[in-house]
Every structure is written in C-alpha cells, then in structure tokens.
C-alpha cells in the first residue's frame, strides 16, 4: 500500500524480496546499499541472527527521484527465507506494492524454489493479494555457480505467467539494479493504472 503525503510531496512504496533460504535476498539489498549515492538512501537495517541469517527482515529506504514534483521513495524489505519463519514472512507482506522473487539457480535448490513460491502465493492470498495481479518480477540468482539449471528450465518451473525475469549474480551486482528498476516501474505503472 503506497503512502502519498501532499504536504511534503512524497510518495512511498513498499517492495518485498521473497525467496528460499540463502538465495541472496539480503545480498541484493546489500549491493543496492553499497552502490547507491549516500544522499539517496537511508540506513540499511538487518534483523539477523549471530550467523547472519535473516531473523525478521532487512530494510533499506531508497529515493529514486521526482515524478511531477513528488519525491518517490521505495522501501525495500527482505523476508527470512528459512521455512520455519513463516509467521514473520506473512507480517512483512502486509501493505506490499511489489514483489521480487529471488530464485536460487542451483539444481539442488529447485524444490526449495518451488516451495517458496507456493508459500508466497499462499501468504499473499492471506493478505488479500493475488500473485497474478500484484506487480511482480523473478530473478534467477547465483548464475556463477556450478550445477545450475538452465534459464528455460527455471522459467518453466517458476515463471509460467511470464512476468519479467532477470539473470543475476547478486554478489557482483549483475542483474541487481535491472531487477529493482523493473519492479519499481511496474509498481508505479500499477499505481497510475489504479488512479486512472
């Protein structure tokens, strides 16, 4: 749910990075944080365990520019990927404007990807959203790893609705900003459509 403030002329939107454990959601946000002009970002908050596994969420506020005199901000969140943190994942999806599904390209993680995507669909539905209508993109991360599935295979398994999809290596930043730009654009287009 976007938030529009007429007095400070700001539009704030919420994007959630979803995906199985260790697929690189936090790494996406860390790369964005490291590569963004300090004026355009706030602090990155990570609520993580001692072993740097996301416990509740990561949060990164990002300003991307002005549209018709309105400062446009995106609040990026990640969810904890591990299966048993489902209650937390549901909470973070509240008020979401756009979703990035980060898939792990490694063959061994195929099942985890599918399970996480089913979980995304269920949890979104519980909040009153439909994955087929919410602004949504898919990222196939870890393309630099050995034993990865082909893009066709991943696409068939995880993207039957043919939303925009991106190849990525989040550790080096490949595909990270392309993914973000794509979902941000979809969110703004959806808000425009809703206002028409």
């Amino acid at each position, binding site marked *: *749910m976007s*938030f*529009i403030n007429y007095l400070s002329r700001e*539009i704030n939107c919420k994007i959630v990075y979803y995906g199985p454990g260790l697929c690189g959601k936090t790494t996406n946000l860390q790369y964005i944080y490291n590569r963004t002009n300090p004026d355009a970002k706030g602090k990155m*908050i990570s609520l993580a365990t001692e072993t740097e596994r996301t416990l509740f969420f990561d*949060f990164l*506020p990002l300003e991307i520019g002005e549209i018709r005199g309105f400062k446009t901000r995106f609040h990026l969140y990640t969810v904890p990927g591990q299966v048993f943190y489902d209650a937390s994942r549901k*909470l973070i999806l509240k008020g979401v404007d756009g979703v990035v599904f980060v898939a792990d390209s490694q063959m061994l993680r195929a099942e985890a990807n599918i399970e996480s995507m089913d979980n995304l669909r269920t949890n979104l539905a519980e909040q009153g959203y439909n994955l087929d209508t919410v602004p949504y993109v898919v990222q196939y991360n870890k393309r630099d790893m050995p034993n990865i599935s082909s893009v066709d295979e991943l696409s068939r398994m995880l993207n039957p609705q043919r939303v925009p999809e991106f190849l990525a290596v989040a550790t080096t930043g490949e595909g990270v900003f392309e993914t973000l730009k794509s979902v941000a654009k979809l969110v703004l287009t959806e808000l425009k459509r809703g206002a028409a």
Partner: protein
Amino acid sequence: MASPQMVMYEEEFAQVQAVTDRLVQDANARVVFVVDKNGQLISASGDTGDLDTTSLASLAAGNIAATGGIAQLLREQEFATQYHEGVRQNVHIQVVSSRVILVVIFDNRTSLGLVRLRVKRANEHLSRIFEMVMAKAQDPFRNSPFAEITDDDIDNLFND
C-alpha cells in the same frame, strides 16, 4: 488492492502534527512520531535532529506486527500498548484505531504515568483524524497525483 492507499492531505497532516506537537509538550517527551502500520513515517515532533526516523518507523511497525502475530496465536485481539524501558530512555508505543502507531520516546524528565495519560487523549484525537483520512482515501472522485503521471514520467525516472 488489499487495503486502500493512504493519502495525507495538508489539512489532516496539519491536524496530526498539531496533536503530536502538543503531546511532546504535555507529556514532556523527547520525541513523538506517528507511523503507518506498514512502516511509513507520517509525522514527527520534538527533538528529531539526530534520530533516524525512517528506520525507527519501520522497526516500530515491525515490532507492532510481531506482537500482533503473538496476539493472534494467543487469540487476543491486539496488544494495543507496549512499553520498553531503557537506562536513559524509554519508549511507549500505542496502536491507534488498529491503523497507525503512536510512538513516544521519553527520558527521566517525565514519568510513565504522565505519558500514558497524555497518550490516551492524543489517541482519541488521532482516531478521529484518521477516520477522516481513510474516508477521503476511499472517495473515488478525489484526484490522485498518479492520475496525472504519464508513462514518459515513469520512464524518465529510470534513465541513467
């Protein structure tokens, strides 16, 4: 869309700001802020100079969301009030109309009793204001700034 978009117009924003400004004075608090349950900062009053209000807003909302989850598991409706006691500073968090969160940060210049008392009154005022905000947001004839935005405007935002 699952929940209506929140739009703050100048009139309601000024009213919210007046309530939080007054609460800072009446409760002798350091900072007061109002946050949407989704973590968006709505207004802040008091000594906000060195505070990262954006992060605080997101974390306060996360906190309320987590205790809301606990309430659900216990079949409680909601834990509307929370209090965190620190060595030098304390935080009082109040859910207003199940919709927004009122956060008061205070130190030993005041007391929890006074903060609670003043929050109760502010809560009533804010409830009325946010009822109006939500009624306006649901009015289909009201203009959204997005109605004027063109596809070119969106594309221009992402030109490197």
